[in-house]
């Protein structure tokens, strides 16, 4: 099922986690966007160019490529199936689901924060 990636939301969530001292994983905007694109293409090949469509405003080609290699490939979240083509593994999907949970936690926390703010 295709799902839209809200870059603004992902950035807000990443900043929320960074504000708690979590700078990697859920607090890393590059990691979030890459994993969101991979999760969206479950069972399909994800082109590197598609990932860059979302990450270009945050990082250059080199650092995304490096992240794909040193984090995603090394930890077995993706497998490289062709030049510039990756397929997400089951472990990658688990990571993607964790990312969704982190977004849900952010939303829940934000909503509750707003409720408390309105409480006299």
């Amino acid at each position: 099922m295709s799902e839209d990636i809200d870059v603004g939301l992902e950035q807000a969530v990443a900043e929320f986690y960074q504000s708690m001292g979590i700078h990697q994983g859920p607090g890393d905007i590059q990691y979030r966007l890459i994993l969101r694109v991979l999760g969206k293409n479950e069972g399909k090949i994800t082109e590197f160019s598609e990932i860059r469509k979302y990450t270009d405003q945050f990082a250059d080609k080199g650092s995304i490529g490096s992240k794909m290699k040193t984090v995603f490939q090394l930890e077995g979240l993706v497998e490289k199936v062709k030049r510039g083509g990756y397929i997400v593994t089951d472990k990658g999907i688990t990571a993607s689901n964790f990312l969704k949970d982190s977004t849900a936690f952010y939303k829940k926390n934000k909503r509750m924060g707003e409720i408390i703010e309105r409480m006299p």
Partner: protein
Amino acid sequence: MNAGLLLNATICFAITISSFAFAWVLARNEEEHSEKSKPALWSLVILWSLVGLTYLPTTIRMIAAYFGKENLDIMMYSLAVIPFSFVAVPLVFFILYVIAGSKKISAYISLLFVLFGASFLMFLFTKGIIGPIVSEYGSIFTINSDIAINIYMMGLFVIPTAMIIGFLLLIFLQKMPKHLRYRTALPLVAISFVFDFMLTDMITMVDVMQLVARLFVLIGTVLAFLAYFPPMTLQEKLGIQKYQYELYEKDIDIDEEEEDVDV
């Protein structure tokens, strides 16, 4: 002439004074609240004022009953029932505004409860009331309209109570700091106490139950006070007191500090 009636009047007077005092303290501290919380604050001020306005004529009513002034009793009942009918309006606004954050939507839905209150009053005044039946502990009126009672039960009681319970559940299911949980849950419990026992007070046919219901309304008002101005002993017991501290300005060299520590 019964001492029970005087006790009843005293409780009503205590509710009146404490509700008005609470509303006044909330209004006076307006500056301390953020712009976002002000609509909810004012709805609370109105709510507690309505509680006070309900129990002020009720106090006079109990004194009138003590002295056997039936006409004054009836007049004061008719007066008390007006603010009572609209207690649900600020309550609904408060809950909806705090949860949803929209002043407009909260106001429109509250308006619906103004209609419920007005129709309750209309049926109550057109069909009349039976009483007063003055007994040892209270003076009781019976509402002579089933429709009025049904409107009250369904529109003015069940829905706002369900809203309070829902909001409380939302708070209890959420992990949050202890002092925030206390600060959000206790006012709701207090409001729920006051609101539910006001209804019991209004529809009961038993004098002792009227007295007990009013006692619980008073407890609810005290709880509301405790929610906003918790005494230090309670704060310590619940572990919600704010630790008084000053920021340590000197830059710390962690390595140096570790060396100083005698392990």
